[in-house]
């Protein structure tokens, strides 16, 4: 038996009908407030106090989420079922014309592959995010994001309204909410799906490096706008639009300081941290070691 349609014939019954939906829960949705997230522990395994929670969201295939995070925030990406692909862009929230530069990221650090210890560098020679932990090991800083044309050819559609959203348009929508637009979409990084460069320059997709529950731990070294889509990697050979859910969790913590080994791990990185610190000193309430602004 098909249930009878709800009575939405008047404003009063329509309001009642709308409000009755508020307690529904679905697989892919944010926890609001984030403090209600259950069982979040930091990298050391210490439970995160509820008042430090900033963000807890789970995005399904083709979804996106974005947030402004304070300097020092810890950001965890979790590959829930072992098949997520986190397409990530990041901007300096204090001056968004400063943004991720993947070419500088790989060139300055003399390393094409991202992992624990990698710094995601801006085009102004500063650290936007540092990768503090990684239980997956296969990521990608070279292959970028899908677009409408590519997904239309591969899946039959690519619009964000379709079952096969492309990452580029997801970025465009998310960025617009932060006052940014298509001109601001630069090459992104992808977490949980990797690529390797062969001696002849050929690109080899590495799609089996992750497992359920794998995490990437990041640290905001500046106040940042983080934009994340969860769409299939552009080199994923599967003909179907396969991508697993992605959980995003963030809480307040402290930025990398001179006391951390990561600060001194490489001369290029140390200078990047110094240039980051130089910028922070000019922010309102900025302090090189503090957790504000």
């Amino acid at each position, binding site marked *: 038996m098909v249930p009878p349609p709800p009575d939405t014939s008047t404003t009063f019954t329509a309001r009642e009908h709308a409000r009755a939906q508020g307690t529904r829960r679905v697989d892919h949705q944010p926890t609001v407030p984030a403090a209600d997230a259950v069982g979040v522990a930091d990298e050391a395994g210490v439970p995160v106090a509820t008042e430090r929670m900033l963000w807890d969201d789970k995005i399904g295939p083709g979804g996106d989420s974005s947030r402004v995070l304070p300097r020092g925030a810890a950001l965890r990406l979790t590959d829930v079922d072992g098949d997520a692909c986190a397409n990530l862009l990041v901007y300096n929230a204090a001056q968004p*014309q400063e943004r991720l*530069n*993947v*070419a*500088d990221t*790989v*060139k*300055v650090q*003399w*390393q*094409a*592959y991202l992992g624990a210890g990698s710094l995601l*560098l801006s*085009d*102004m*020679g*500063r650290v936007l995010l540092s990768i503090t932990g990684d239980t997956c090991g296969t990521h990608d800083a*070279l*292959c*970028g*994001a899908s*677009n*409408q*044309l*590519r997904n239309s050819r591969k899946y039959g559609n690519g619009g964000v309204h379709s079952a096969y959203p492309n990452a*580029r348009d997801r970025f465009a929508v998310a960025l617009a909410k932060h006052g940014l*637009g*298509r*001109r*601001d*979409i*630069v*090459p992104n990084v992808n977490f949980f799906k990797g690529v*390797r*460069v062969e*001696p*002849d*320059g*050929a*690109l080899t997709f590495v799609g089996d490096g992750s497992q359920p529950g794998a995490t990437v731990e990041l640290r905001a070294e500046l106040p940042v706008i983080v934009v994340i889509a969860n769409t299939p990697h*552009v*080199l994923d050979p599967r003909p179907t639009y396969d991508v697993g859910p992605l959980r995003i969790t963030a809480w307040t913590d402290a930025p990398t300081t001179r006391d951390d080994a990561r600060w001194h791990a490489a001369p*290029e*990185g140390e*200078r*990047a941290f110094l*240039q980051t610190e130089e910028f922070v000193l000019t922010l309102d309430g900025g302090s090189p070691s503090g957790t504000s602004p």
Partner: protein
Amino acid sequence: MNGESVLHDEVVEARAPWSHVVEPGCTLRIVDLEGNQAVDCILYNADDTAERYSAPDTIVAQGNVFLVAGSELLSNEGRPMMTITATSCERHDTIGGACSRESNALRYGFHTRHEHACVDNFLLAHSGRGMGKRDMTSNINWFMNVPVEADGTLGIVDGISSPGLTVDLRAHMRVLAVISNCPQINNPCNAFNPTPIRVVISR
């Protein structure tokens, strides 16, 4: 390029920026006059500059990080902008990015912070066209050599170009080509000696 009509022919000074629109069907030739001169290059759809060259789309479509004869240069919307119809240099780079004063400081030290760099050239070229920093994106480095080792180590090493080598690019749309004749002196991309290039547009 016999039998073709030359629309524009110019020598770009060492360390200088250059930009020009290349109409569909026209060919832009870049000549490495003295050898081992990196030529940083960004392409824009001249009618909608939000559409621009995309290194990721280009290398994914051809399954290889090196640009060679036949490589199709794709936009961020996945559309062909130009094709490398011929080149006498074995390969070109598109993952090494453009040097900037800010990244030079990281790579070589703070003493390089006031040296001229490609990003400043691009920003200067953009400033005359109502464009700016938001228009900075991935680029091509003609005649530059960036190998990637098995462990992921990558870097700019000695060039594989020589005097007189060329690359020919045929436009598939109205392309605004913006070039920085790279001023870098801290790595071998210009053999530590930036030199002039020649740019020729023909139909």
